[in-house]
């Protein structure tokens, strides 16, 4: 039976191919000159160069965090190229102008973005090797005053907004990888929803890492002004390489009074082969500031890829009555390692947070939930509910839970529930005895296990996530 389990999990990565597009790659290594080069290449204003240099200065003094429950060889930061841009670089006004090779890549991935955009009403800002290639639906969004563009573009077109908010949620020296990102980020997404506007469609970005050994440092900034609301989708997939690729993104969300930001991620980056060779290192800092009263920030993530995941989408609940949510499914297989969870920092009165985390471990993988619930002395009446469930497939994987709870206001209510279960022979036998084969059984069990999280995802994303889990775990159970 463990053999069948193994087969189900050991499905090769289907998105492993490299697109041959000529890249403009910076020499390997990191120093002030490289940062100046990036800034010059991107024709940036002085204040942004200062921002980068300040971050670099802080980074030099910092040490790589050693506390996550993950193991990997030391990263040689001087062996990474910090800038790669696909050619041609000129702005494109329509999909027709996009390199056909790139379009074919999307076809192979099963993400025909133009169709997808048209059918689903999703605006897709395509990030391809750190530079935006095409942005759709921008016009339509502009009509209601929404700005949705690459962050490089925003730096030029809306410098005041970027300057006002960049680094306010995740300061340049927040942590080792955030500092690195702040120094060398090449592109990302900027989104601004003005006062009172409900974004008419889900906004979506497909990320894709392409050039071998080029670290990818995305920067995303989303601002929802008073009474505004937006749902943002981030989906990722990357080609297969043997060399580890570092990815250290920073995502900052700001919600003003009565604003609502929902951020959903489905992540399927190359996880390494069945022996743990290769795969993406995903060291991400994601944080939302619920700044205004009654504001809400909701994170939903389905993490299935990467060799190593280090990621804690967090909410700082500053506004009175603000709400933070974190819904997560993390799947690890083979030799994948994930240390993921959230931080809910309650500052304002009557702030509420919900954490629902579902970890699924298979193969030789290790899956850790790490979560902090902090109730500040000012957060009278704050409430938190946390639920952390782990599921094990096979007997060589690990599930770990590290909940940290710090309560400094005695009117607060904090609840934590946890469970561990195992897809075992008895469950599969029960299905089989009703005529249902192993693969279908596993898919049903997993989807039942993840239901509370999947129902938070937008419809088309939920379907994608369900399929993705099915194929990630195919062959792992039997």
């Amino acid at each position: 039976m463990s053999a069948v389990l193994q087969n189900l999990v050991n499905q090769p990565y289907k998105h492993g191919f490299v697109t041959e597009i000529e890249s403009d790659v910076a020499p390997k290594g990191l120093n002030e000159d490289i940062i100046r080069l990036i800034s010059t290449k991107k024709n940036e204003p002085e204040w942004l160069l200062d921002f980068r240099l300040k971050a670099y200065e802080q980074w030099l003094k910092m040490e790589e965090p050693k506390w996550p429950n993950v193991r990997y060889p030391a990263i040689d930061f001087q062996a990474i190229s910090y800038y790669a841009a696909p050619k041609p670089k000129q702005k494109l006004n329509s999909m027709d102008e996009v390199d056909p090779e790139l379009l074919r890549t999307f076809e192979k991935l099963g993400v025909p973005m133009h169709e997808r955009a048209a059918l689903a009403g999703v605006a897709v800002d395509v990030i391809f090797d750190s530079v935006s290639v095409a942005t759709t639906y921008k016009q339509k969004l502009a009509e209601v005053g929404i700005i949705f563009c690459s962050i490089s573009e925003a730096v030029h077109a809306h410098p005041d907004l970027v300057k006002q908010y960049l680094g306010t949620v995740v300061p340049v020296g927040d942590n080792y990888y955030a500092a690195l990102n702040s120094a060398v980020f090449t592109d990302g997404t900027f989104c601004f929803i003005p006062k009172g506007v409900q974004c008419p469609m889900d906004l979506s970005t497909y990320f894709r890492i392409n050039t071998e050994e080029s670290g990818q440092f995305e920067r995303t900034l989303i601002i929802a002004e008073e009474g505004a609301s937006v749902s943002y989708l981030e989906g990722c997939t990357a080609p297969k390489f043997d060399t580890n690729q570092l990815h250290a993104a920073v995502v900052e969300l700001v919600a003003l009074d009565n604003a609502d930001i929902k951020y959903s991620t489905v992540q399927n980056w190359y996880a390494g082969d069945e022996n743990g060779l290769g795969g993406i290192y995903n060291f991400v800092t994601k944080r939302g500031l619920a700044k205004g009263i009654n504001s809400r920030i909701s994170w939903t993530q389905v993490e299935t890829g990467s060799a190593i995941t280090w990621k804690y989408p967090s909410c700082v609940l500053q506004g009175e009555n603000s709400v933070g949510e974190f819904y997560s499914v993390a799947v690890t297989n083979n030799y994948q390692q994930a240390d993921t969870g959230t931080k809910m920092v309650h500052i304002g009165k009557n702030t509420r947070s919900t954490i629902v985390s579902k970890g699924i471990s298979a193969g030789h993988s290790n899956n850790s939930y790490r979560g902090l619930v902090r109730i500040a002395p000012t957060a009278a009446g704050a409430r938190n509910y946390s639920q952390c469930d782990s599921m094990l497939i096979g007997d060589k994987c690990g599930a770990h839970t590290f909940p940290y709870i710090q309560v400094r206001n005695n009117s607060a209510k904090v609840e934590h529930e946890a469970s561990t279960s195992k897809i075992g022979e008895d469950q599969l036998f029960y299905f089989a005895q009703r005529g249902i084969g192993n693969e279908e059984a596993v898919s049903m069990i997993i989807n039942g296990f993840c239901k509370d999280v999947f129902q938070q995802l937008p419809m088309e994303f939920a379907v994608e996530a369900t399929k993705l889990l099915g194929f990630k775990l195919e062959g792992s159970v039997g």
Partner: protein
Amino acid sequence: MIYHDSKVLLEVRGLRATVNGIEILKGIDLTVRSGEVHAIMGTNGSGKSTLAKVLAGHGAYEVTGGSVLFQGSNLLELAPEERARAGVFLAFQYPIEIPGVANSHFLRLAYNTLQAQRGEDEFDPLEFEDFVREKMKLLEMNPDFLDRGVNEGFSGGEKKRNEILQMALLEPKLAILDETDSGLDIDALRIVTKGVNQLASKDNAIVLVTHYQRMLNYIEPDFVHVMRAGRIIKTGGKELALDLEMRGYDWIGAEHRAAVGA
């Protein structure tokens, strides 16, 4: 009921099986014809639940000897799901909980798998709902069972009813009921056994694995087999169960030992 013209459904010869290298079944012989009801009784550890699981194909058990023919074909070479689709049904002693999966979804998938096997049309959720609700009446089940997770938070009695509901849906040729009476109060036992009786016909057979005679007050067996240490040591009619109720199991063991000269 015993019919003179009925065909042999299940033929077990010299069946031996081990779990973790320990032999549990030490040579079982059993013949079941369609229309018949067999009761397999015995003390804890006598191997009766193991026999049920081995027939259904549980992977933890290794068959080390003997043969099992089901409708004339070798049952042992079929995967558990193939045995199920061929018409072997096991009502579990401890039905498994599947959190988050709606019972209706699970039941429909099981039913549609069988429909596909028979080359018949699959039911969509609405058609299935009507169909399953009829079957539920038989077991006096509340329709809200359909929306709950499979066996999730069900009481012992509810789980057993859910098992028999599946039997009603799948209409197996051979239904093996593994201690379906355990954990049932007297009302639930009456409802469950009434359901089983209504499902029994001359085209199918029922094997009841049970510890106690009380279930046999409701479902009348044609044959009673007593297991001990991995063998069937005595076979009789329904009166044997009554004897066991009055005298316990020890006398049969003693009689058996005397007979084999142990």
